[in-house]
């Protein structure tokens, strides 16, 4: 999976690139509009992560060029701007998603996976853990043939953990995924424990949930 990261902030570039490399993405970097334009013209990308405020122009201008590509890559706009107009304009010009800074790298990964699922044309996207099957497309959980009813938030939490399998996710990362970062509530990270408890209870009625681990003092992990 080839990704072009268009971002002018070196430190952020370093971290995103490191993260994507670790996840087996091939990541190219462009820090200016001109540089990005050249890369897009030459290389076929699956994803373009696009910052809008670039030193030599507006990242939005690149969207037109991207639209002309034969195999149009998926675009996620990454920006500190959070004006509604920018968001609408970006999505209207063909961007697939819009992530406001500061964002979590795990959230970025989840969004990228969601786009991939969407673009794969309703292909079944199932993950099996022991006898549990988590269908990311249908947003359902089954134990063998039995469906387990989870609430929207519980499924979203489980999905986020499954997507980031074998990685410890702390309560703040999980809370941000569930509620965004507007809820003025320091308690929300504690609410994660409640949701995890409920997920374990619902799933535990069918089979062992040892794969949903609590990492003491840190957070939770799905171990597959």
């Amino acid at each position, binding site marked *: 999976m080839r990704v072009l990261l268009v971002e002018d902030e070196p430190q952020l570039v370093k971290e995103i690139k490191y993260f994507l490399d670790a996840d087996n993405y091939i990541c190219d970097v462009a820090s200016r509009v001109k540089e990005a334009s050249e890369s897009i013209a030459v290389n076929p990308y699956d994803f373009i992560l696009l910052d809008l405020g670039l030193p030599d122009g507006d990242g939005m201008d690149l969207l037109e060029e991207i639209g002309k590509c034969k195999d149009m890559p998926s675009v996620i706009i990454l920006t500190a701007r959070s004006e509604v107009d920018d968001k609408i304009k970006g999505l209207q010009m063909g961007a697939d998603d819009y992530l406001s800074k*500061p964002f979590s790298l795990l959230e970025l990964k989840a969004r990228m996976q969601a786009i991939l699922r969407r673009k794969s044309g309703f292909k079944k996207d199932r993950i099996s853990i022991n006898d549990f099957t988590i269908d990311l497309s249908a947003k359902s959980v089954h134990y063998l043939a039995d469906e387990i009813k989870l609430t929207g938030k519980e499924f979203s939490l489980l999905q986020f953990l499954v997507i980031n399998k074998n990685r410890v996710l702390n309560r703040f990362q999980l809370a941000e995924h569930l509620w965004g970062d507007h809820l003025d509530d320091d308690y929300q990270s504690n609410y994660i424990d409640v949701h995890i408890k409920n997920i374990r209870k619902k799933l535990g009625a069918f089979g062992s949930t040892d794969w949903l681990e609590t990492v003491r003092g840190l957070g939770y992990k799905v171990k597959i």
Partner: protein
Amino acid sequence: MKLSAKFLIYNFLSKGVLLMVFLISGPYLIEFLAVNNTDRLLQEKKEEVIAIIEQDGIERFISEENRDIGYGSYNLLKEEYILIERVNFLYASDTIFVEQRILDETSVSYRVLASTFLAEDEVYLMEIGRSLETIQDFKEIVFRIFVSVILIFLILSFLLDYRFSQRIMAPFHLIVGKKLSSIKEPQQFVHDKIVTNTEEFETLDLAISAMMRRIQKAFNQERIFISHASHELKTPISILQSKVEAMFGSEEIDHVQMEKLVDMQGTISHMKKTVNALLLISKVNNAQFIKTESVKCNELLAELFEDWEGIAKDKSIDLKLDQNPPYVLKNTNQSLLLMMVRNAISNAIKYTPRGGCIRVFGELMEGKYTIVVSDTGFGIPDEILKQVKEGLVFLKDAEKDKSGFGMQLMFKIAVYLNVDLKIQNTEKGTRIEFAFPIQ
């Protein structure tokens, strides 16, 4: 009381008092005029009679043989009479008096002019009388006309005053109604000039517009500052967050270091929320959200209930969704609406002790769709509520170490979405009502 009503009452009373004075003094005035007129008529009659006597002699009235009897004559209806008789005295001047006379067994009052004159070396007394009944009739007719004219004048002047006061106050009502009362935030102020030829209202309109320009400018400066400051903070926070996440994913870090990183993550999360809350408040203040969405409120409440039911249960709080009839709210913003109601439920859960109860319901109250969140919690301190209502952003509840952005956002969003928000501390806890505008 309205200024126009005060003008009306003043005009009505002042005119009423003047007309009352006229009404009271009217009969006396009319009588005075009527008597004066009668006296003038009597004088004219006397002059006519004297002229006849001077021309034709006294024989025209009293023949030689009737000199001792004299002359007396009433007209047909006994309204006037003339009497001439010989006397042996001479008045210094004419006398006018009122005298009762019995005619056909009826007592009649007459205004009588008595005058003496010389004719053929003899002194004659001439009395010319006019019935006061005719004066009375005249007086009554004039008085009736007088009263009718006054009443018509009073009614007409009241109606004219009313119309005039309405017309003259119209620009003032336009300034207050369209420019001031209908707006909730300074940005909504419309600078269009009010059309009026009243100089005072023109000055008022211009002064208010100038003042609002200054307020809008101050608001914009604050918004731009918050927006720039927030954006400037976002990139460094993003870098910090990605660095911490990268370290968190590293296998070279031990458990203790991981715990420190989680703490750092918490601090970053808090910084993000603060920056985002500031930016959100600034954006809501400046109406930077679209309001064209339709929201199924019952589905929104059901979704929130599902999200929070488990958390409430874990805290042994009885969270119940009562009445939830289908209702579609138009021309609103779904994410802001969700955030507003979610903050109310989240606060209720936070401040309700174990074993407490939270009721959430939506229903039509006085024609308005209303969402109510009531709890049996500790209530919100009055000073905090006051601060939030006054629009203070940087409030701090030191005891609980909360920024209070959630409440602030709730109020700001309510104002932006034209929601009538009521927060009451009841005997049992807190009751929050979101009454939506009638569609």
